[in-house]
């Protein structure tokens, strides 16, 4: 399997505090990879480095075998890395459809003058963006929300809209940051199905999630971070029986008890 996203020996320090230490990760085509770990283990930091928001202290990030280090976030996004956010960050005053269309901005080429004049190319791009966005909303099961303002959407649909917006970039790898946060068990099951559907549509997924039952059910491969270091990697069942992982989550009982 081709590795779409590779993270090699990634180290990230903030003013002397080591947030990530020589982390190696990868996401291959057609898989759902999960990144788990206790609070403060550095999971979101991985996303922020990979998407170019932070410059790592050491290490490299490869997308399609090419380094994306030092590129601006928008450039990395264009190259095929789209993300969602732990605490939903939609454009609240724009409609759901407009939110998704923002995600497809990078696929358009028409400039300022072309937009003013309304050249045929501009019209083509616009109508394609519109229909693509409508299609994606449909894919995520929220086409009935297309005209509503993002801020007025119910919580679960906001999460779905965030994913739709990211998919509009047609990414190689989709980064999901705790997509199930705040969901009830039923919604989590539905989300799991949706993520599988996204994978089957040809997007590789890297998932940060705390809900273990969800992670274990849908992931092809799980990596575990603790103290900014990768302590384990394997199939869901391997991870669940890995003593290091259990210790990381539940803590070690010392002889004092």
């Amino acid at each position, binding site marked *: 399997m081709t590795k779409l996203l590779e993270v090699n020996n990634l180290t990230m320090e903030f003013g002397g505090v080591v947030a990530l230490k020589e982390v190696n990760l990868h996401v291959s085509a057609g898989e759902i990879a999960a990144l788990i770990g206790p609070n403060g283990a550095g999971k979101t930091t991985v996303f922020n480095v990979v998407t170019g*928001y932070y410059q790592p202290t050491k290490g490299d990030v490869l997308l399609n075998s090419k380094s994306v280090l030092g590129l601006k976030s928008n450039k990395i996004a264009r190259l095929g890395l789209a993300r969602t956010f732990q605490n939903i*960050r939609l454009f609240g005053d724009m409609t759901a459809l407009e939110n998704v269309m923002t995600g497809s901005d*990078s696929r358009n080429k*028409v400039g*300022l003058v072309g937009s003013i004049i309304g050249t045929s190319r501009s019209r083509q791009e616009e109508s394609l963006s*519109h229909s693509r966005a409508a299609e994606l909303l449909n894919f995520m099961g929220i086409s009935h929300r297309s005209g*509503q303002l993002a801020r007025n959407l119910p919580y679960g649909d906001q999460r779905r809209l965030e994913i739709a917006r990211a998919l509009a970039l047609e990414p190689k790898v989709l980064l999901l940051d705790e997509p199930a946060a705040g969901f009830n068990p039923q919604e989590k099951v539905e989300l799991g199905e949706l993520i599988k559907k996204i994978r089957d549509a040809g997007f590789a997924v890297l998932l940060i999630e705390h809900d273990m039952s969800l992670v274990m059910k849908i992931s092809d491969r799980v990596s575990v971070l603790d103290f900014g270091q990768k302590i384990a990697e394997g199939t869901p069942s391997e991870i669940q029986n890995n003593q290091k992982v259990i210790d990381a989550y539940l803590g070690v009982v010392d002889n004092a008890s």
Partner: protein
Amino acid sequence: MSSIKIAFSKFNLRDSFGAWWENATKKQRIAFRVLLIGFFYALPFLDNPILGTPETNFQSVLFYPLAVYVAMAVGLNIVVGKSGILDLGYVAFFAIGAYTHAILGTFYGVSLWFNIILGAAFAMIAGVILGLPALRLRGDYLAIITLGFGEIVRIVALNLEITGGAAGIAGIPAPPNIFNVTFDVLDPKPHYWLMLTFIMLVVWMYIRLGKRRPGRAWEAIREDEDVAEFMGVETTKYKLWAFILGGAIGGGAGAIYSSQVASILPDYFTLNVSILVLACVVFGGMGNIWGVVAGAILLEYLPEKLRFLSETRILFFGLLMVVMMNIRPDGLFPRKKREKVYDKVTGQEISR
């Protein structure tokens, strides 16, 4: 205080008009547009005790400050309202346009028709020079830098020979006649019509942009710049576009202005102008073009109409900006946050 607040929040002309507009037929809409545009072109002839300004020449008020400030407010709205970039030096672009026509028109005989375009072009160049580095900065730092830029342009005009120093440039030519209409210092009507045409062109452009790619990108940047960047939106490029487009509009307006007033001096281009334009945008409703136009008309017309206001108007504008931000931060006519209906397949908006 709270009763004032309630009264304020209940007053929403846009909504009731918007409801009418939503239900209007195509013919009704065209008729409304024609009537409105006709009304504005006919305004100079409607100098009567109700509309007219008793102590100043109504026709000349229509050009300056009314039309001039509407044009600038519409331009600044793209920057501040639509994209959320706080520009406190907008007057710089206006001044660049004004001096372009003053210098090229007076000393080199270039016609205003070229100078409007050249003024806009020079303003855009200045916008690129300032914007490329400055637009990377955080909002409040950017505000101070633009303020500095506005002052630098004025001080440079004050100290250069070609700009005539503090005395400025006089005898700036008006354009030659077209269709038997004489452009002249004494008769402000033709310049008013010219500025009105310029405004309509700009508004038309703005509406088209708003519905398309740049408009969406600007809104996304205003709402959350980081996220826009993560979504592949080239935020720096779009901010620069907004900045230079706003600048070009200021430059064009400046060229027309200098042609009408026939003489300009650096004192016309102080920070006050930038702030007054900003007040128009904020008062009307950042990001809503009709709100901004209405805001500029109200703020520039009332002081002329109510004589007692004109001496103290900046005082009131300052107060107004504080009160507005505290009570109605989105302005009197906030930008529309209305829901839309889209076709399920094409995703095109369906008008009701």
